């Protein structure tokens, strides 16, 4: 395709680029501000001088947080929850999506099962009924309370199901002619070509598990079992109060006192809380388009 580079076109391109740059900045500058605050000394922060570059650069806020056991514990719970949670989600999604991606001819009960799952999207009970079920199944105060109730994310399952349905049928038929069963076909034929959609729903699961906070607050009985986001939501870290109450402060910690305040440690905590997501998602980004679109529109 040839593009005529008329004058108007060039002007448009320049403006368009400028506008998109502005938009992109709008999306990340708040984080840059947060980051700058977290690396700044508390005095310029209090004086509102910090914008996008740290003033009085130091890492005391991070050291302070990373030396606090509570934060690290919560981080550990979140990692554990996310790793197990995503694995459970994926296994269930794949095992459920595959049979449902069959035609009515190959799997006669398909329609009924599809409805069985879809209804749960349409109709959701409130938090108290769910709480009672979690409690009766003995999951309270266990990491499984954060994983099993949402073990099968139905929406993601539908995305994968639609994707599998859009795969060329010849591929599958050939496999059956070779004498392979459903399990073999699923693992050796379907899964390898489903990478984009699996990667996409894996990211959804990851984000969901990492970001959930309400369930942690409600199902966990003690603060040391809170995942990170619940911890961030309920535990207000006030370094000044911390130093007041600490009795045997290590020398390292006491050095921080002059540099950090609630705002810098809060910024550092928030930033630490996003790192895992920021680190992982760009690698999965290339799959979004194929994974999402092929999965959401009926093939």
């Amino acid at each position: 395709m040839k593009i005529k580079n008329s004058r108007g076109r060039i002007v448009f391109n320049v403006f368009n680029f400028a506008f998109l740059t502005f938009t992109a900045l709008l999306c990340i500058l708040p984080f840059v501000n947060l980051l700058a605050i977290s690396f700044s000394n508390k005095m310029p922060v209090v004086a509102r001088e910090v914008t996008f570059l740290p003033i009085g650069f130091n890492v005391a806020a991070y050291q302070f947080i990373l030396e606090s056991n509570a934060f690290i514990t919560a981080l550990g719970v979140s990692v554990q929850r996310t790793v197990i949670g995503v694995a459970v989600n994926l296994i269930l999604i794949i095992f459920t999506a595959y049979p449902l991606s069959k035609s009515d001819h190959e799997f006669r009960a398909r329609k009924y099962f599809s409805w069985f799952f879809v209804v749960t999207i349409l109709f959701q009970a409130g938090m108290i009924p769910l709480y009672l079920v979690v409690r009766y199944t003995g999951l309270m105060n266990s990491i499984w309370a954060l994983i099993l109730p949402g073990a099968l994310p139905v929406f993601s399952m539908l995305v994968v199901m639609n994707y599998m349905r859009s795969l060329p049928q010849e591929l599958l038929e050939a496999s059956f002619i070779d004498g392979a069963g459903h399990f073999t076909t699923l693992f050796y034929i379907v899964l390898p070509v489903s990478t984009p959609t699996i990667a996409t729903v894996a990211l959804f699961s990851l984000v969901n598990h990492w970001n959930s906070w309400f369930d942690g607050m409600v199902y966990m009985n003690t603060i040391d079992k809170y995942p990170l986001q619940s911890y961030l939501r309920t535990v207000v870290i006030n370094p000044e109060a911390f130093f007041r109450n600490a009795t045997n402060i290590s020398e390292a910690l006491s050095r921080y006192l002059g540099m950090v305040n609630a705002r810098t440690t809060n910024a550092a905590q928030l930033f630490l809380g996003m790192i895992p997501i920021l680190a992982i998602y760009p690698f999965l980004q290339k799959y979004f388009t194929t994974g999402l679109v092929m999965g959401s529109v009926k093939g």
Partner: protein
Amino acid sequence: MKKGLTRVAATVLALSMAVACGSSNNASTASDTTSADANTQTGSSAAPPVDDGPLTPYAEPVTVTWGVQASQVQQFFDGDTYDDNRWSRLIKERLNIDLEVAFSADITTDAYRDKLNALLAAGDLPDLFRWADRNFMTQAYNAGYLMDITDVFNQYASEDVKKYQTAFPDSFAGASFDGRLYGFPYMNDNFHQAPYLWIRDDWLENLNAEVPKTLDEMVALALRFTFEDPDGNGADDTFGLALDKHIIFNNYGTATGILAAYGEPAYNQGMSFFYRDESGKITSPYTSEAMKKTLALLKTMYDQGIIDPEFITKDTATMEPDVTNGKYGMMYHMNWGTWHPFNFSYQQSGVITRPYAIPTDGANPYKIGIQSSKTGDIFMINSAAEHPEAIIKILNLYEEVCVQVPNDDDYLTYWDNEQYRLSPIYVGIPTELHTQELLDAFEEGSPDSLAGSVKPLYTQMKGFEDKTDITTSGYGAWGQMYSDGADGGGSCVIALRKYRPDGAYIDNIMSVDQPEIYMQNSSVWESMMETAFTDIIRGDQPIEYFDTFVSDWLNAGGQQCLDELDTLYPAS
């Protein structure tokens, strides 16, 4: 193992309840009396062996589970934690009772309340838990989750602990239903909830200002604190009066002190305070003319810039750093302001913030609302607890160590620096009640006449007076409260020598029994009230909007609530 058992037991119980009540479903007789009966039976059926004294250790270890009101304020020494600390070790050693933390949640945010309500819905309450909400207690009682501890208490409580029943009959009434005891009250004589106007010493001095006696003087001083750079840093970064987003709540940073000056008593969250006015009518102070005047005054102060425009985001937690960093010159607060938050600014910069009797209106006699001594924090025991007597034994132990005080070192180890909070149950702090004794002893110049647990207070009081004790305890904890100094004295002294004799105190009439409509709608009323008041102060609505709020409230069940209270608490 224990956990598994409780779970099985609770499930079986829930199932059997479901079956049992399923059969009587048609009769629809499920009423509160049935559940009350169930309570009584559960309590008395746990009949313990007879040869068992108040502090007799168990031969075999027993476990008690409890709920922790966690807080950043809690101090831990020697690597203590909520699970393993000086109290849990003492209790194990002396009584052979294992403490198990069933849940912990932060008490300075909504987390503790949310968790407790969720546990209530599921019936997963621990053996022992503490909460101050009568609505919650009533629901837990109706649901049959509370144990009738009357008999256990009578059998196991030590003589010293039993005496509280006669010393604090109202508190015990507040922990009872139909004359049976369903919890151990945190015994407050609530006079110390009264508001005081706390003012920073250094700012007063810097501006060479007088302590305000009237509201007008208070506003004038607040203006000066706002605009005359009282901290001398050259920046316009101070506010005259601190205000919490709840506006009218307890007395922590709220305007309840102004309402009091205008002659209406109020205390506590939401629209939960009612009293009979002179004509004998049940009244809600939040809908009174005095409230309207209070809002008008706050609006003026807001417009003048005396009140931080960001007050709507301030609560106890967010105000703390502001106070520490010297943002406010004055604040209405209770007796215990000396600990929190003013000892933080003391520690940060050596500034003493003093309480003064609230400035008055001149035209009206001031009235101070306090909670009925029947309401307050209560330690409740789960009806499914296997060893309620173990909990009473812990209480006996607490009484011995921290109230009778056979040993000063123990007292300091187990009580001082908030360590008493690590005991799962404790005798509330009726320490304020010793004010008169302390003042007498101070006059005599000798602490010898004082009870064991009061003696350290004498030392701290003395330390504060002659400025020899600059520790947290001397300033922050107690010294200042009993101070008999020249400026009218510490907060306890003001209460004793001014508020009491002036006849200012008025109890909340609503205590144990709450109207159904109140329990159902109180959260909605609370948001109606806070919204209307915030709007008026910030000028989003004119002051006349107050009348709209009042009629809206009356229509939204307010009138019904007043009527029901009239029946529930008949005029004597």
